[in-house]
């Protein structure tokens, strides 16, 4: 069966040109970049070249790019590294409720270390309102971290405006751009952020390579101590093949960005229009301020994991924020924070498109989706409405 892959927010396939760029460093150019002989020099040159390419993707100076092993590591590094570096100036941190677990759980860790954390509410689109941020800032605030774009609902935050508010008060601003990098243009100077996280496997690069951008002159405490790799800020022998791959992926993304966006937007809009033809289906996230390939919904009266399984049986691979589809059996905190009732969040479904998806893929997904939603509603006690089964209703635990 033909696979139609709609889970690019989960991960993307490796671009063949990226694999090609990685191969020498898995084979003959296996040297350690720290070694002084030619083999080491070759590896070191590959890392520096990749650094320049990743920097160019976000309009940063190469020296501002620190390679890490994952987006989660970059987010941990940003929060913990800045909190520790600034703790003498204040112990208050602000994050939003739209954040990824790696930001939220880093914030929770810092809370245990004596920091005070404010979790900013988001509106029905998953957006942080600048006024809310303004009210949360105190004299003690040292760090603000707000996600650039949500992988769950696709919403793009007004980062420029939010970062400006931080700057006026001398507060460090980090943005998690893992879902956004390579999807939309990013310019760290124009955004006015101090730190930014990005990850290669979200833009057709390999897993195991990611980066944290740190503004020139900003002090950050390392997570990993050891040698002097990455300017002493992140020890450990560099993952040269993955880093070379990330550089290549960044270069390709930069070159084709506007082309990809132009291709994805109409495809996404057609998918949204087609999926919404089924009744009681709602778009989640902002209708306009959203990632070019991102289409996410709640489908009432059915559960997300069941939808995913039926779609997978048809070769359609997508994602869901439902409780039953998560290993922890918890609904997506982002959906709940947007004010979506947990019963409705159970019907979450997320399609994230990539440039290798065709119009045919999208039409096929629309058709199959409507059949599957109908079939599962046939099985559901709610079918046409939440009031359908009174005795069943009573069994739903009130939260």
């Amino acid at each position, binding site marked *: 069966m033909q696979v139609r892959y709609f889970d690019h927010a989960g991960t993307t396939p490796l671009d063949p040109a990226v694999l090609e760029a990685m191969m020498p460093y898995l084979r003959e150019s296996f040297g350690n970049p720290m070694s002084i002989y030619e083999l080491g020099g070759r590896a070191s040159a590959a890392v520096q070249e990749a650094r320049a390419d990743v920097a160019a993707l976000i309009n940063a100076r190469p020296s501002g790019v620190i390679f890490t092993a994952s987006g989660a590591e970059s987010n941990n590094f940003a929060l913990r590294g800045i909190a520790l570096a600034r703790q003498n100036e204040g112990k208050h941190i602000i994050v939003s409720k739209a954040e990824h677990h790696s930001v939220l759980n880093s914030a929770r860790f810092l809370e245990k270390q004596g920091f005070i954390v404010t979790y900013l509410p988001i509106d029905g689109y998953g957006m942080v309102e600048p006024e809310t941020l303004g009210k949360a800032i105190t004299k003690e605030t040292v760090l603000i971290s707000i996600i650039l774009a949500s992988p769950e609902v696709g919403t793009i935050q007004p980062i420029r405006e939010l970062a400006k508010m931080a700057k006026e008060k001398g507060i460090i601003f980090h943005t998690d751009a893992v879902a956004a990098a390579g999807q939309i243009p990013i310019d760290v100077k124009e955004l006015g952020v101090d730190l930014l996280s990005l990850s290669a496997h979200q833009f057709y690069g390999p897993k195991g390579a990611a980066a944290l951008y740190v503004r020139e002159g900003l002090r950050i405490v390392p997570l990993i101590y050891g040698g002097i790799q990455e300017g002493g800020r992140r020890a450990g022998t560099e993952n040269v093949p993955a880093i070379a791959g990330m550089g290549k992926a960044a270069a390709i993304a930069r070159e084709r960005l506007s082309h990809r966006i132009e291709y994805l937007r109409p495809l996404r809009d057609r998918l949204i229009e087609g999926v919404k033809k089924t009744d009681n289906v709602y778009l989640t996230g902002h209708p306009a301020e959203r990632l070019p390939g991102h289409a996410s919904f709640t489908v009432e009266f059915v559960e997300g994991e069941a939808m995913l399984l039926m779609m997978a049986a048809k070769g359609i691979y997508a994602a869901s924020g439902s409780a*039953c589809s998560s290993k922890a059996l918890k609904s997506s905190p982002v959906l709940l924070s947007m004010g979506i009732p947990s019963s409705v969040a159970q019907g979450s479904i997320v399609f994230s498109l990539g440039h290798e998806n065709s119009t045919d893929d999208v039409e096929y997904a629309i058709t199959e989706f409507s059949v599957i939603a109908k079939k599962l509603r046939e*099985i559901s006690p709610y079918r046409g409405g939440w009031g359908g089964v009174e005795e069943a209703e009573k069994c739903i635990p009130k939260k």
Partner: protein
Amino acid sequence: MYSEKVMDHFMNPRNVGEVENPDGVGAEGNPTCGDVMKITIKVEDGKIADAKFRTFGCGAAIAVSSMVTEMAKGMTLDEALKITKESVANELDGLPPQKMHCSNLGADALKKAIEDYKSKHPQ
């Protein structure tokens, strides 16, 4: 992640719907994730003559509902009361650990349906 049998009962669920004029109705909610399963039964000569379900839940929950109604049909009420989450999971060739509570839901909904019948027909 699921056995072939789970996938079969999920993709082609048996006994979907409500039996007509049910003798017993049982519904159970899932405290972990808010899902709901409703089972209706028809009782004849002390045996479960028919059982049907409707479920709002994951793939495992739907497969469990299908299996538990299949198992119950033809059993005496006392036999059916002995169905447990383990016996349903076994019939399905196993469930992932985090999905065992979905199996519980099936056994409990059936139990409630039988109790409902018994409360209406005291011996």
